[in-house]
């Protein structure tokens, strides 16, 4: 390649790299102009990641069983009765304290029972609570969060925490508190309900989320009995909807009396598979997944004999402070800076090619993390680790190539010949290493939740590293070498004079 061509091409590449780096890393600021007619804020790419709970915080709430209230609620109720001593005393007598909770003494609530003048928690309530806590925990386990927490608070309440990246966190926190039985309601009456001889799982085989293009659905797989049931119900509904009744054309899938799916019925449904989607764009894959997990749980676990009320949702900052992410970016910035400077010091002109290579690796990985399947690639501490691993790998193989070129040069070869044979000697080892690491990253896809995301991220990092080492650095080095005046200086080589000359 000619000198002029090399300079022009390098300039263009530099401009693109600088622009992309700015797009990725320049911190947020208010744009000094209107964007689509409105004031807008600039957000760098690194701000758009879906962070897990460690780095991005999340949401949490409490589930209180019927007849159990928090100390805060108890105090608020007492304060509201302060003006009336009798009502206050009556209220206070209707609860007993248990840790930070208050348990109802009303026999109708079934939480406590009176024994020898004192109240103790009933065995039935304890058994129901334990079963419900286990079922709710398994629902969250199935969601596949990279980080979440379900804990039992003071023996008889639950605290659930989910990461902020879940776009349906509000729905999830609300829906997963439903522990009643599964029913079908046609707007006027319950048309399907579990009974002594009616088991929901005999009708409904499974529920799962599916995506098609940009739409998301809950797939319901029915047994033959279920198909018959749905056919009869939808036949009845579609015929009544012809009578232009306002509600009769809708079939409601309910858990514990709460609507989970509202299906508008215009014709008879006669199939073993049903696909039910949301009515608006806010119905995401996460929403479909939450609905599917809840229905599957309700159909297979049945009525758990206890009902919960979800408290207000709290927006939680990361456990170790809201500045966790900022400090992490600062640390990564320092490391990236060192990765750019050190090769220039040690490898001279070839270090320049390493700079382009490192920046290209940074750009490819950070952009891929942000734009490949958002919602799947959660940014976790594992992401940081594979990013750094890939970065070090790129630097290592560049250093290895440089060492090999230098070794060839020391045997008396010309610079061009040394570059050629130096790269040739490291090629097999580099290829083998990257091939095994790519295969290993593919194997990691077997992992669940965060491991699955980590596998995709590892694949991105390793493939980017391989591209930078095997093609990009050599290409840039070739251009820099063409543009440089002194090839020896470019590599920092010193040719010892031949005594014979």
């Amino acid at each position, binding site marked *: 390649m000619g000198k002029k061509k090399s300079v022009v091409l390098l300039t263009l590449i530099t401009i693109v790299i600088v622009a992309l780096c700015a797009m990725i890393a320049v911190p947020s600021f208010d744009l000094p102009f209107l964007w689509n007619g409105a004031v807008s804020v600039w957000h760098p790419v690194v701000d758009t990641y879906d962070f897990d709970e460690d780095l991005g915080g999340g949401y949490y709430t409490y589930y209180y069983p019927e007849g159990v209230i928090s100390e805060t609620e108890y105090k608020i109720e007492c304060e509201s009765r302060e003006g009336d001593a009798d009502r206050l005393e009556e209220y206070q007598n209707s609860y007993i304290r248990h840790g930070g909770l208050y348990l109802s003494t009303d026999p109708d609530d079934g939480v406590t029972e009176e024994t020898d003048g004192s109240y103790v928690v009933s065995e039935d309530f304890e058994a129901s609570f334990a079963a419900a806590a286990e079922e709710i925990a398994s629902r969250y386990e199935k969601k596949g969060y990279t980080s979440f927490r*379900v804990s039992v608070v*003071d023996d008889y309440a639950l605290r659930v925490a989910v990461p902020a990246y879940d776009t349906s966190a509000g729905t999830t926190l609300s829906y997963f508190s439903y522990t009643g039985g599964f029913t079908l309601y046609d707007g006027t009456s319950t048309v399907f309900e579990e009974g002594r001889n009616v088991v929901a799982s005999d009708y409904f085989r499974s529920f799962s989320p599916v995506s098609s293009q940009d739409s998301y659905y809950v797939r319901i797989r029915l047994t033959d009995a279920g198909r018959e049931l749905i056919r009869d119900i939808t036949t009845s509904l579609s015929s009544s909807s012809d009578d232009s009744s306002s509600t009769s054309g809708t079939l409601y899938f309910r858990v514990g009396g709460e609507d989970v799916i509202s299906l508008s019925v215009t014709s008879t449904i006669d199939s073993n598979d049903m696909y039910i989607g949301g009515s608006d764009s806010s119905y995401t894959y996460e929403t479909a997944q939450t609905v599917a997990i809840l229905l599957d749980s309700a159909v297979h676990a049945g009525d758990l004999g206890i009902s919960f009320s979800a408290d207000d949702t*709290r927006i939680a900052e990361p456990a170790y402070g809201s500045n966790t992410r900022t400090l992490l970016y600062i640390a990564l910035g320092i490391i990236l800076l060192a990765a750019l400077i050190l090769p220039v010091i040690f490898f001279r002109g070839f270090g320049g090619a390493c700079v382009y290579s490192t920046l290209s690796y940074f750009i490819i990985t950070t952009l891929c993390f942000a734009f490949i399947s958002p919602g799947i690639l959660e940014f976790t501490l594992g992401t940081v680790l594979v990013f*750094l691993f890939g970065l070090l790998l790129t630097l290592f193989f560049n250093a290895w190539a440089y060492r090999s070129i230098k070794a060839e040069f020391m045997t008396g070869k010309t610079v061009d010949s040394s570059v050629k044979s130096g790269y040739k000697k490291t090629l097999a080892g580099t290829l083998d*290493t990257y091939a095994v690491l790519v295969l290993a990253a593919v*194997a990691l896809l077997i992992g*669940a939740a*965060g491991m699955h995301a980590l596998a995709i991220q590892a694949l991105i990092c390793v493939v980017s590293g391989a591209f930078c080492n095997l093609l990009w650095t050599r290409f840039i080095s070739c251009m820099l070498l063409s543009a440089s005046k002194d090839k020896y200086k470019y590599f920092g080589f010193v040719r010892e004079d031949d005594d014979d000359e």
Partner: protein
Amino acid sequence: MSKMMKVIGKLKLWTLIGAVLIVAGIVIAAVFGFHADPTIADSRTLSVRLDSYVTDARTEYIEDVCEEEIDRAGLGDKYSTVNEFSGTGCEIVYTFSSGVSEESLNGVKDAVETRLSEATETQDSVLYGAFVYVTANAEDVSAVLPSGYLWRGILAGAVILVIEFIYVSVRYKLNMGVTAAAASLAGTLLAVALVALVRIPVTTSIIYVAAFALLYTTLLSLVIFGQMRTNFKSDEYKEKTAEEAVASSVPVKAILLFAAATAIVLAVTGIVATAAVRWFALSALVGVISALYASLLFLPAMYLPLKKSSDKRAALRARYDYKKESRKDKKAAAKAAEKAAEKTDAPASDGE
């Protein structure tokens, strides 16, 4: 090289040390579990709910009161968060280890409650007129791991080992494939065992550290075997003994430099970032140390007897071929001699 010569002859020692550490880690993990980070462990909490308009001054005041009372009781919170409600209000939560007694936490709760309720009734206070509620709770963790998280992670690790074994066996040698897979397994198990042994607080992210240790050991193994493959082809190395050839083919300096760079990178990340990242970086550092142990000490020591054995077999094969060849030669020579004798005998008989 001389140091490496000493290292490669001590397979039993490296195996014993590795096995002892791994078994000790497994025992500790089985008996006591991993040292769970407070975010995924049983805990006690002190929560202050501000059910009024939130200002920085109000939250700072509440935090000051809480921290003073917590310090006075000598509890020392593990971490604290200020959490917002979607409407008005916020909840400040202090999380303690489950070892903190209910009495001492209730003592702090009562003291905080008294001081804050006084503040809500004092006109000059920033909390004047606000509604503040203090509660103390105990939390027992019910679930933190997604379903299939562990067994699918272990399965993925096993598949990686099989891939490594097959690839290295095909591209390099069978004994190298066996050694590489064994070293990677040792590096990974050692990393997890050491994290359990040295009681580093872990979250569910420990599985990332295990995956990192596996990839790191795999990388180092491939670098070492890549170098060996190149060296063993040269005439210079054919003259050397198996010990000399293996010892001089391990790129110790390059691997140590790479590990040092990784350690510095992890140290910078850990030092600059917050506690959650710090403990994770430390766990990853343990992964690097384990990978170094597995690839610089265990791998060459394990490979040496395998190489000796394969060299011996190769030599035997070569000798066998030689013998076979010589027998053939002898037979051919005997046949040729017989034919020659027949030829020389034939004219004589014709002449008779």
